[in-house]
């Protein structure tokens, strides 16, 4: 039995590192501002996506980002996937600072 080729596998640690870096770069240290949140969320997602495509792996990616103001409100998120378990994977990173939450999830589907 041969192990899965590392060059073409979805590696969670690598992806989560990319996500954390993108989030920190885009919104780290900022307080929630309604007027800027659209631009922040776009930049988080686009940065994630460009870093992921630089990995050069044969994957299609779906990146979602939720930025929510801290207000005591609750939020539940769930996802379920119909795919090939041996080749596809996902990773979710939850980031927060004093004024907002940011949840980024990345799904990688092998082609």
């Amino acid at each position, binding site marked *: *039995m*041969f*192990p*899965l080729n590392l060059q*073409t596998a979805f590696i969670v640690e690598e992806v*989560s590192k990319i996500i*954390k870096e993108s*989030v*920190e770069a885009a919104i*780290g*240290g900022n307080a*929630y501002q*309604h007027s800027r*949140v*659209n631009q922040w*969320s*776009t930049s988080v*997602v686009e940065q994630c*996506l460009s870093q992921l*495509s630089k990995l050069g792996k044969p994957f*299609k*990616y*779906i*990146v*979602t*980002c*939720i*930025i*929510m103001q*801290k*207000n005591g*409100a*609750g*939020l*539940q*998120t*769930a*996802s*379920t*996937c*119909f*795919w*090939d*378990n*041996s*080749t596809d*994977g*996902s*990773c*979710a*990173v*939850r*980031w*927060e*600072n*004093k004024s907002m939450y940011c949840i980024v*999830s990345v*799904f990688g*589907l092998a*082609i």
Partner: protein
Amino acid sequence: MSDVAKDKSQKREKRTGKVSSEGSHGVKGNTRTKDSISTVSCLTELGHHDENIRMTVTMENTYQMGPHKRFPVPAVTDILKDVLVSYLQEEKYEVEWSQKMTKTICEVIRARVKDLMIPRYKTVVLVHIGQLNGQSMQMSSRCLWDASNDTFASYSFKNSSLFGVATVYAVYYE
């Protein structure tokens, strides 16, 4: 002679590796910086877990240029609307209930999209249920895929105490 024959038969062997499985998110690691905290969670499998390491599967050529049957976005949007309205109408936001409900709605939507029997499409279903508390939020997503074959469907629902958003991404498996 026999070696060549063996090679040929190996090349002709066709294997499909599609396994559907349930997943739930489990927390993996925490890091703390001066004024922000980040948590990483990754997919954990609830259903049958393959203990053996899988071989990389090489597929044969199908010579198919695109999907024979495209993903029906309006039909799926109707499914999402139907499921969200029936499960969330007249409900109030409560923590444990909404935790179970997000997972249930996810499973129901995935089952109904599977029933549509669209071949060669992988699907990802996301459901968010949140409390309405006067807060502001932004949800966005970007995808790196083949825009001619892959698509998504989304629906959002709101009542007096909660909101629910469901999204289905459909990715063509070449």
